[in-house]
């Protein structure tokens, strides 16, 4: 009996020492070395790919953000500022519930099922809003023209991109609101469209923050 207790203790001791040594290697040395290399080679990316406009940081090119009007009195959900290109819905995004000394973004999806009535309602409402917001005098948007990414929430809730189709659909509205010629805005969208990497990796996309920064620039110049 005593012998087996001693053996077990010896074995657990060996386990603990193995864990501590491997923690030193994989939990201290490894992340520090990778951080060192990352900070030396790619400091901008390692620190979050921040974008500046007019000398101020306006966000990360990788993290989607809202382009809404300030909340009016008594309003629960803000309205989109239609001067700017809008990103995807983010109905799964949350704010932190623990460690509330911070105001952290909680990434996430809606997790609603394909046959969920709640999700169906979200999609239909979003589609109606896209049609309403983007129909300008002389150009009416048809519901069938609205691409899927415009009416669905992304996996992270932080999708920085929209499809080229959704950007093109917003171009007439954005041009009208900024008193810019449509051709200039369409050119801007084309300039900010990223194709598939190597022609087949991923999907074509438009980074909304980069597009809006360029749009602000263009609007200020003209």
């Amino acid at each position, binding site marked *: 009996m005593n012998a087996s207790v001693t053996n077990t203790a010896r074995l657990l001791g*060996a386990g603990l020492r193995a864990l501590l040594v*491997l923690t030193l290697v994989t939990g201290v040395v490894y992340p520090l070395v990778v951080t060192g290399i990352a900070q030396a080679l790619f400091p901008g990316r390692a620190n979050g790919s921040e974008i500046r406009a007019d000398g101020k940081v306006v966000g990360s090119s990788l*993290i989607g953000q809202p382009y809404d009007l300030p909340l009016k009195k008594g309003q629960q959900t803000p309205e989109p500022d239609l001067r700017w290109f809008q990103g995807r819905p983010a109905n799964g995004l949350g704010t932190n519930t623990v460690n509330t000394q911070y105001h952290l*973004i909680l990434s996430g999806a809606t997790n609603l099922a*394909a*046959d969920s009535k709640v999700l169906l309602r979200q999609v239909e409402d979003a589609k109606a809003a896209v049609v309403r917001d983007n129909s300008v005098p002389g150009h009416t948007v048809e519901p069938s023209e609205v691409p899927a990414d415009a009416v669905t929430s992304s996996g*992270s809730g932080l999708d920085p991109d929209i499809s080229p189709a959704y950007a093109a659909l917003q171009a007439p509205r954005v041009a009208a609101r900024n008193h810019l010629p449509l051709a200039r805005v369409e050119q801007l969208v084309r300039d900010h469209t990223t194709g598939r990497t190597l022609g087949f990796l991923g999907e074509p996309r438009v980074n909304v923050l980069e597009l809006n920064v360029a749009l602000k620039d263009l609007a200020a110049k003209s």
Partner: protein
Amino acid sequence: MGPVTAGVLQLLALIGALALVHKPVGAYMARVYSSSRHLRVERWIYRGIGADPDAEMTWPAYLRGVLAFSAVGVLFLYLLQRLQGVLPGSLGFSSVNPAQSFNTAVSFVTNTNWQSYYGEQTMGHVVQTAGLAVQNFVSAAVGMAVAVALVRGFARSRTGELGNFWTDLVRGTLRVLVPIAALAAVALVACGAIQNFSGIHEVGQFMGGSQQWNGGAVASQEAIKELGTNGGGYFNANSAHPFENPTPVSNLLEIFLILVIPFSLTRTFGLMVGSTRQGYAILATMVTIWVGFVALMMWTEFGHHGPALQAAGAAMEGKEVRFGVGGSSLFAVSTTLTSTGAVDSFHSSFTGLGGGIALLGMMLGEIAPGGTGSGLYGILIMAVIAVFIAGLMVGRTPEYLGKKIGGREMKLAACYLLVTPALVLVCTAASLALPTPPHSMLNSGAHGFSEVLYAFTSAANNNGSAFAGLNANTDWFNTMTGLAMLLGRFLPMVFVLALAGSLAHQQPVPVTAGTLRTEKPLFAGLLVGAILIITGLTYFPALALGPLAEGLA
């Protein structure tokens, strides 16, 4: 080019990359686990552990090493989370509550990485890098060690010796996982994944105001999270989060990392048993199932059935624009056919059948190609079952790789096979029969049932992905999924090592004209059939109530 063509090309590119590296990586791992030389740093480590790296172990000794190391790992990770509130370098985050700490500690030690917490608001730098990421490495190395012990059982004869657990653990970590992960981590940073130790970051926004996010050693953790088929995300959105998986290139790289060790281990296996053709038969079985599942997933996801997806025009709910339907389907299948559980899109919002394919992938026992190590030993158990079935058909004593599959071997293989289905079905039934656990479901009806079934399938198979609408942060789910993960990881290991010990004792029987040729395509076909039929018979009723009911509605 359309999105379907692009998706298929991504699959082909991935197959090409894996085909290119599987031989050198597999051969390298065979050398790592067979070499008699120790690196200097390894000698220091063995001295630190107090273990003789050249001492051979019998199966009970090997198992005791696995269990002791894992038990200490659970306790250490539990305490780290419970003490987070007083640890420096933790962003001022408070300690994690007991039930969640237990669940998370078990989850990471068992290579499951089920997460009932939100990473960005719960875990500070110390717990993430020195706790969770460490288990990403060592739990994968434990899986590989057990797989190698089983291979030695087939390869050796008239001995009880299966190698040395500490040596296998240290070599797997230092020589295999750390170098590949380091290279991959730098590549991920080059794509845009973050890697820093700054605190909470407050940055301005385009419309004014600011947003807060945490910095962290994300890329280094992401690399081993995929390579070790772990899957626990730094952030709640896991590999859908742009800081974890910023571009289509990083997406394909992460899928590659998930698959590279499990597929390459078939080569290691072939070399160690002295017949690479035996390795090819196993590889062919894995590839057949994996490609079949990817094709089915792409078919159903591009088809986007389901009222909400039809209204939207594509299955983009829970998917990122940069990955699209193709890249997301490829990731979803690869993560659920291995024990990874990382996600770049949210399975709960897939089509009914798409969610069912993810679920079925885990139910197969994660063997095509499966987790690091666990995939190989899982499919070798299925191969034992398949030769037994073939033996029954022709009335011959079954044998595999020259070893007789007798009563003792079959009992162990059958026990292995029964553990996870028993855990999944009993826990799911109990959760639905009790009054309060069903309150955790987000969706109602068939999909709500699938949420619970998915949770226990994921936990017992050590996957870790979720139909994440389920609120799993309750005492019931934290405790029960914790137990399912523990039993689903270590009971099968007991049977695997016992089987290895039993095989190692045998004298190999010579190959005769009547021997079933297990390196031939016929056997690979038999193996695919056995896997699908056994899984189908076990889970069909449960699948019919959940994803099939939803998908066919």
